[in-house]
């Protein structure tokens, strides 16, 4: 492998080091991930630039290639759907391409988002490895209770055991991105109770109910 073919070398050094540290920690503690995981995809794609077209819809993958493997993408879709279960009649986060946003995020040419890449990719690999270990299937194929069992071990609601501790960071970051991706879609905004971004002839101020809620009525 020449230096130019070594994907880790092409990453910014501090990201590469963080990735290797996360991967190593995951391997050592989980004890069942192989070295293939260290094949970090090459950083590629150009930044947005200072003069992008603003009034068009962009899709993940349009500006830079997405780096998750098909298996990682399936795990990401399943975890996003577990973290943010759909309301009655609503679409799942995966149906709103929230996992593709997360892929866009970790694949970007910006250090500030790409720093999540090693944590997220290693975490997604962990999900499948853990699912195989527990249930002999990949994470996306588990039922809700089985997925929940794994999530409970790493979501931080109760202290994680040492073996799972490295994945608490993964879960936190993944949840942050899943929520950020979901609640910035029109469906997610409505669920949160955001009802703006629509033209109105007048701005009417707070409703009587809102004033009453605050003791201002």
């Amino acid at each position: 492998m020449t230096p130019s073919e070594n994907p880790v070398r092409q990453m910014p050094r501090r990201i590469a080091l963080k990735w290797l540290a996360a991967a190593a920690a995951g391997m050592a503690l989980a004890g069942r991930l192989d070295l293939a995981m260290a094949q970090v995809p090459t950083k590629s794609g150009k930044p947005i630039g200072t003069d992008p077209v603003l009034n068009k819809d962009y899709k993940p993958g349009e500006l830079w290639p997405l780096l998750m493997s098909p298996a990682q993408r399936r795990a990401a879709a399943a975890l996003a759907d577990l973290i943010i279960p759909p309301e009655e009649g609503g679409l799942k986060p995966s149906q709103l391409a929230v996992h593709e946003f997360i892929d866009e995020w970790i694949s970007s040419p910006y250090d500030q988002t790409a720093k999540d890449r090693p944590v997220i990719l290693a975490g997604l690999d962990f999900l499948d490895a853990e699912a195989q270990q527990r249930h002999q299937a990949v994470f996306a194929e588990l039922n809700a209770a089985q997925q929940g069992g794994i999530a409970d071990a790493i979501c931080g609601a109760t202290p994680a055991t040492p073996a799972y501790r490295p994945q608490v960071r993964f879960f936190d970051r993944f949840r942050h991105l899943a929520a950020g991706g979901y609640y910035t879609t029109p469906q997610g905004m409505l669920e949160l109770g955001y009802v703006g971004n629509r033209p109105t002839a007048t701005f009417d101020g707070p409703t009587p109910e809102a004033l009453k809620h605050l003791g201002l009525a």
Partner: protein
Amino acid sequence: MPLISEKELKASYDVIIVGSGAGGGQSAYTLTMNGVKVLLLEAGRNYDPLTETAMFQTPSAAPLRGISLEDKPFGFYDATVDGGWQVPDEPYTNASTEAENKFWWWRARMLGGRTNHWGRISLRNGPYDFKPYSRDGLGVDWPMSYQDVAPYYDKVEMLIGVYGSNEGLENTPDSSEGCLLPPPKARAGELYIKKHVAKLGIPVIPIHRAILSVKQDADNIPAKLHPGNPRAQGILAEAMRQRAACFWATDCGRGCSIKANYQSTTVHLPPAMATGNLDILPNAMARAVTLDAQGKANGVSFIDKVTGREITAKARVVILAASSAESARILLNSKSAKFPDGLANSSGEVGKNIMDTVGASLGGQVPAFENLPVHNEDGAGDHVYVPWWLYKEQKAGKLDFARGYHIEFATGRRMPNVGVAGPAKPGYGKAFKEDLRRTYGSFIGFSGRGEMIPNKDSFCDLDPSVKDKWGIPVLRFHWKFSEHELKQALHMHQTFARMIEAIGGKVGGKPATDGAKAIKPGGFIIHEVGGAIMGADRKRSVTNQWNQCWDVPNLLINDGAPFCSNADKNPTLTIMALAWRACDHLIEEMRQGNL
């Protein structure tokens, strides 16, 4: 907007204006409406807010959900083109490597400049703000008073459209009858804060912003602004009718395709173009003001960024409105045998006295705002604010800093962004969703915007070696806040913590105990002014009160550079008022043959 190319330049103009933002736009408007033939040079590209603005796009339609990035520092949808604290191919330097001694210089390279994205906060300087030295012995007095400028504040407010109210508060001037548009109603959280900080003696009043809360009175305002000039009245009336009232949605920082807010590209330049007296040449990077044998300005040399060629355009009068620092740079780069230290610099004051606004912020979470009944709180950005309320205490020496600040704050159920999960409790599933729903809209942020006093350690000069892509020497900044600014920033943090506690909230993070930790870097608030201050004494100032350079009377500086002080009131409205006043004086001087 149909603009010219360099091939279409006329042999000569009455006036060349460098820069198309607030100062340049206002100058182009005032001059062309009075029949003056103007060439406007803009360093950036043409920009059309009607077709380019992202009005209703949600973050989910943007790359990376529209977050702030190094090449789009105010987020993907921010109107700024080719701008930020770093601009491609156009470096600047700092003399110091220490963070607290660095100045951050924001620029935008687009028609209309920074007016396309600015916050639209349009506060008048008050009587004290024009005579700061007389009041407390610090800084420099302006060579005119509030009463001299007030008529021009009236004119600009009527022209651009400003919502707000008259409250009769100290050094917070009322506008003349008929100038202001009605302010929007306060939001739920704003009313709650107003009620609960009143016990701290802190007033919350409607803010003034350059947004049409209702359509302008196109039948009557034009005659007030252009008496005896029926052609100008007709052009302005038509331009006003093309502007819609705000429909209370989408962030003003994106720009406004319905022209409901002020930006030079929707308010100043269209009527100026309609006069037939204006040529606009974009992608024209000014290098220097050129002089005739008598030492009078006779044109501007610039780089045509399209071809890379250097070209000189000719005119009777030159107006620099390139932004305060860029105008200082052009003066410093306009060296000649007669002006070896830069043009109009016999006082040695070019590049000196640069000021930004003091900024500090603190946020919190307010349990009372949780589960607020759902309703649309978009509105139009800031609706209310806290004007400086401690003039008397300051005058009496009860505070350890000399100048005031106002408080801007954000509440409400605004469009969610990628940080929505914020500090939610660990967990997932329905409980997580419920946690987010409960706390959404319950976060608040207070930002102080305060006056900085000019000091000898904050200035710019030319870097001795660094040049931009076109070989033009770049600015080197020197920066230091004084104790007045640091103590003011500390006071901001302490006040915000008291306000958050007064509304039963929890302060996010820790209020600073050291002003140096609270204050934002110089240039961060993007209110830089000074660098060519005006004055009554030509030995201590660069221009007179009409922005005319003492050394070169047919050279004006119509941006923030002539500011003698930088009151807490955001500078844009004052830049426009002074540019209009300067142009009225210029027109009279030209009519009398003095220039």
